[in-house]
């Protein structure tokens, strides 16, 4: 019996040494390589933009090779979780959505390279600096921003006798919405709703909360979801939802559908929505305008933001200096940023490029309106909020509270009190 156990054990040991021997060999081979290789993880248009940036970068740094791996956001996060947990298998440069970095970087402070030396704080929109700064350290390079404005259908507004410049507050917005719903019809004959709302998600609530200047957590990471602002935002969302001017949607495909089917008159969304509208509803060219988001009656009105990505560098990369050099180049070169903006709608958060003439141009799709100026102005007044490692979990719990209020008629004050106490007991703060 002992012999057998011994044998199995030896076999195990042999196989293990074989494995480690393999990995060692690989390691030394890469070091011998003269050429530097950078692996980049990204998605969709961001990937295309980075490929274009790499071509330009190679002109001055011919000894760099790039390997681009395309994957969706979900895929990147799934790989990132496992890669960070095992400390292996990550790309050198990784694209992340802005609000996601804090979760990973605070759980794995050793996982990402600190970029304090190359990110100049004053050059970027403050909201983006909030996203890349985790526990006082900069772990990401800000890329595109998502300032939110109200996209609206000029033709529907005209039909209903509604004037965009007269919509100042959300009250005005609801009244206008009722007129639109009563008079306009979609190409397929249904009444036009004023705006799309996802009753089981937090998107609209977060937008309203941000307009009042707050997020889920304060600067110390304490949960602040039972504040006056939170109650106010949720009450307003309920009011809009109950007024019958909202079209419910479930998931991104249905959201796009509201644009393609022309079933809504307005969409409060980030600047990148321009690309989606042009792509999904080319037949509506010239029928769109952009206006400021309506304000809460209090007059307090910050901007809001949704989405926008950033680049992080894997701390275990073998070519840290080159990776940093490339990221800084791709994220601050004026021509590249302008190209990314005109080709793919990637709206830069690097403020020095805003003086470029391209941002002062009008857009025919929006009846010649100088839409980008609107977004630049909004971008400057978006408050900086704190995302913590608890953001992802809070997002789900807050979503369930929004559902309770909108779909199950739960009391707003009670719901936010319960939400606050649930999260505090879970996160300990």
């Amino acid at each position, binding site marked *: 019996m002992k012999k057998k156990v011994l044998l199995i054990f030896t076999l195990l040991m042999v196989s293990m040494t074989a494995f480690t021997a393999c990995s060692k060999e690989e390691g030394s081979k890469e070091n011998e390589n003269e050429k530097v290789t950078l692996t980049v993880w990204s998605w969709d248009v961001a990937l295309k933009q980075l490929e274009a940036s790499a071509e330009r970068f190679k002109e001055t740094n011919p000894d760099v090779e790039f390997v681009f791996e395309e994957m969706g956001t979900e895929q990147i996060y799934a790989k990132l*979780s496992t890669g960070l947990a095992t400390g292996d298998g990550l790309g050198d440069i990784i694209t992340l959505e802005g609000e996601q970095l804090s979760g990973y970087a*605070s*759980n794995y402070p050793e996982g990402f390279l600190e970029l304090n030396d190359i990110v100049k704080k004053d050059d970027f929109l403050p909201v983006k600096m909030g996203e890349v700064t985790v526990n006082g350290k900069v772990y990401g390079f800000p890329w595109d921003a998502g300032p939110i404005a109200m996209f609206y259908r000029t033709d529907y507004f005209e039909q209903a006798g509604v004037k965009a410049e007269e919509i100042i507050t959300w009250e005005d917005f609801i009244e206008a919405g009722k007129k639109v719903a009563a008079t306009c019809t979609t190409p397929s004959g249904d009444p036009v709703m004023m705006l799309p709302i996802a009753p089981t998600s937090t998107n609209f609530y977060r937008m309203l909360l941000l307009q009042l200047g707050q997020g889920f957590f304060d600067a110390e990471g304490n949960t602040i979801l039972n504040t006056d602002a939170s109650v106010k935002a949720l009450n307003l969302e309920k009011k809009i939802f109950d007024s019958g001017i909202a079209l419910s949607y*479930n998931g991104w495909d249905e959201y796009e559908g509201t644009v393609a089917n022309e079933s809504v008159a307005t969409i409060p969304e980030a600047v990148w929505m321009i690309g989606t509208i042009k792509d999904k509803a080319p037949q509506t060219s010239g029928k769109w305008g952009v206006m400021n988001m309506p304000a809460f009656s209090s007059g307090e009105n910050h901007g809001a933001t949704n989405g926008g990505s950033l680049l992080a560098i894997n701390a275990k990369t073998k070519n840290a200096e080159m990776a940093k050099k490339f990221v800084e180049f791709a994220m601050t070169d004026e021509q590249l940023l302008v190209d990314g903006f005109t080709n793919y709608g990637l709206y830069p958060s690097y403020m020095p490029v805003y003086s470029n003439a391209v941002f002062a141009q009008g857009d025919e799709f929006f009846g010649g309106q100088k839409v980008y100026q609107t977004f630049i102005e909004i971008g400057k007044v978006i408050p900086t909020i704190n995302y913590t490692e608890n953001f992802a979990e809070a997002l*789900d719990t807050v979503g369930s509270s929004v*559902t309770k209020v909108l779909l*199950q008629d739960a009391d707003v004050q009670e719901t936010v009190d319960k939400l606050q106490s649930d999260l505090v007991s*879970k996160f300990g703060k």
Partner: protein
Amino acid sequence: MKRGKGETKSLWRRLNSLKNFPYFLIAPTVIIFVVFMVYPIVYSLILSFQEFKHGTYSFVGLKNYIVLFKDPIFYKALMNTFFYLIVQVPIMIGLALIIAVFVEEKHVKGKAFWRTSIFLPSITALVAYALVFKVLFNGDYGLINYVISALGGDKVQWFYSKWPARFSIIISITWRWTGYNMIILLAGLQAIPESVYESAAIDGAGFWKKLTYITVPMVKPILLFTTITSTIGTLQLFDEPYVLTQGGPDYATITIGQYLYNNGFVYMNFGYASAIGYVMVFIIGILSVLQFKIKDN
């Protein structure tokens, strides 16, 4: 005892004897089993007593389990999972049996066609099928609501309230897995000798009597098999709520599997997720013992 020759043999020759040969043969399986099964099982047990914060794991004793037993979402997930189990498994197995019997009936034409088309859903790509169901269940322009309102009923907001959302999940899983169970039961039906039915017919048994007194008792072991696999499948349910409802509205459709995934890979609480995993192991263990008891009886 004299050792003699054996001592002079090299290690390799000693290992390479005929007596040891079987161990070489099973070694790959054993190694793979240890590395990919035993190690994760043991490691996740250790993890379930740890907490992961700011890049380091630390032992927290039973904290994860204590928090878990106070976690309302965990209970919701547990309730949902058992609801799916208790409602969906009997419906699906019953349906599979009935369809199998009808497809096997002598006067049915185009048997191969029926079999294939009923089996087809279980090999469709998951995301494609879930997206199609999402469109079918859409509150405003979905086909299901169109039929309901054409028949004079009120439109149902499938994904925005508790019970319709749960039933949308049940309908989807039933559509997907009935055909799979039907094929297994069909194999069982075909194994029943024709003579049994003939003699029953001579004794004057009709369709119903044949079904309850011959078919069901004779496919009982296969019914048990499909019930056990479906039970395990339902307990591990993840894909449908993940794609169709994202566990919503208000956690009404979340399953334990999805809650575990969220805690581990979305919230990065690996310790807590492992604790959920171990509670699940415990529950599945009890259920399996129960099912074996029933089988013995």
